[in-house]
């Protein structure tokens, strides 16, 4: 494996109220790698992303990442579990929020790219609408476009499709695969869904219940490009069953 672009070095996070959310988490992520983190609810997955973004201080260990970018905020792009759009802005302005924070000139310079992203995600006709005029799946797509605006090398996603129905979810999963095939960003993808993780990832990190430790790291060597048909291959079933059993054992050990 080449020099990793993101290193979690024995990361531990204890919240001020005493909860240990992440315990001795260790992981290297290679450039252009798609890594998923799966684990039971409350095992510290969201906490991990907050630690990466510097939204919460670490208790022990360190997280290091590097990427070519204009500035720190453009290194990473984050997609959240809820769309978290600004209700008073149009769809276009929501996608442009990261630019607006850099000033008017930057916003003007980035507008063509924002429109391109909206077109790519099938929202070209909705650029001037407001979030309340969009369905949940469309709102989530706006959130993805916003995260991609600065073309960050590293994409962080916290259960981005968790709140969506199965059909929209499949559609967006395929959209994400497309986007990733294009320029192979480094992706840290958090999910509850084993099949989603297997379909998308190069590696799947399985976490134990709280405090979150690494139970296993599973290599997914399914051929790419993958499609929804990949799900019905025996190889896919074998990998999913393996992750399922790791999760179950991890739960038994702590229970």
């Amino acid at each position, binding site marked *: 494996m080449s020099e990793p672009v993101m290193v979690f070095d024995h990361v531990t996070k204890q919240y001020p109220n005493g909860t240990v959310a992440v315990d001795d988490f260790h992981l290297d992520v290679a450039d252009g790698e798609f890594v998923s983190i799966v684990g039971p609810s409350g095992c510290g997955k969201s906490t991990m992303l907050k630690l990466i973004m510097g939204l919460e201080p670490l208790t022990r260990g360190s997280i290091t990442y590097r990427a070519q970018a204009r500035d720190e905020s453009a290194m990473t792009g984050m997609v*959240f579990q809820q769309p978290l759009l600004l209700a008073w802005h149009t769809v276009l302005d929501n996608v442009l929020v990261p630019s607006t924070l850099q000033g008017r000139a930057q916003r003007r310079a980035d507008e063509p790219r924002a429109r391109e992203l909206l077109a790519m995600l099938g929202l070209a006709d909705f650029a001037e609408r*407001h979030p*309340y005029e969009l369905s949940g799946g469309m709102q989530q797509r706006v959130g993805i476009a916003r995260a991609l605006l600065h073309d960050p090398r590293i994409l962080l996603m916290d259960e981005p499709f968790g709140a969506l129905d199965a059909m929209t979810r499949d559609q967006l999963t395929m959209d994400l695969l497309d986007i990733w095939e294009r320029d192979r960003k480094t992706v840290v993808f958090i999910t509850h869904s084993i099949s989603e993780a297997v379909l998308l990832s190069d590696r799947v990190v399985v976490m134990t219940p709280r405090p979150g430790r690494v139970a296993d790291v599973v290599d997914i060597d399914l051929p790419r490009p993958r499609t929804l048909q990949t799900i019905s291959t025996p190889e896919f079933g074998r990998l999913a069953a393996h992750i399922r059993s790791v999760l179950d054992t991890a739960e038994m050990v702590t229970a």
Partner: protein
Amino acid sequence: MTTQLPRTAVDDHGQHDLSVRRQPPSGAERKRLSDLPGWLLSSTTVLLLVIGWEIAVRTADVSAILFPAPSGVIEALVTGFTDGPFVRHTLVTLQEIVYGFAFAVVAGLLTAVWVTSSRLAEKIVLPIVVVLQTVPKVALAPLFLVWFGFGMESKILTTALIAFFPVLINATLGFNSTSSEQVNMMRSFGATRLQVLTRLRLPTAVPSIIAGLDVAVVLSVIGAIVAEFVGSQAGLGYLIIASNTSLDTTTMFAALVVLSVIGLTLHYIVVLAGRRLAFWSEENRSRHAGL
């Protein structure tokens, strides 16, 4: 419409073969009074009441000192505004209300920003505000009279003080209604603390601030009038007191009408501003949906 089916279809469990058919109602739709627009219904009602009042006063021959006829009030308004003192008094009161309201809004918003962006300020200032809020503000009007004299200054201060608290409290609520997820989102895209305030917390607070302004605008009218009652040389409150002494009830009613018009106008300005600024809020959208 349901059609009774032949009785022969009754089976041994006492059940009938029923059928239901839905279709658009036939014939002309029955018009209801409540289908008419609200403004039309309420203004017609007011007009009828005024006419009833006029008739009652005339037939029962009530003294104008007790109950002036609406026609008399209108006459007093017309002469008052053309060659009487109404223009001067209205302008004085209007200025007191507008300046007092403006002071309250600026001070209330700034205090709310301060209190919600500093833990220390919150811990020190909020308890003081809660205590001060229980003081009846109009009771301070005589004090302001002593400090600032009979002119407009003392009235503006009383007005501002009364209108300040609803602005502060609603704005504080509004600034605090931002979710931590949303703050994290802004910070993950590199927003500074100031940008989180101006681009997230302030817009989020707008519907709540508008609600505060609506309360404040009504209180401003009350504040200015009460302050004028306490001691003044001009204004609609002064006019009411002066015409009270001379038992000129018609002029008192005329002043009341002017005050209501001022209050209503200011209220509608705030409501319209709210609809423009917070077009996206849940509340405004459900209204558009015709609920």
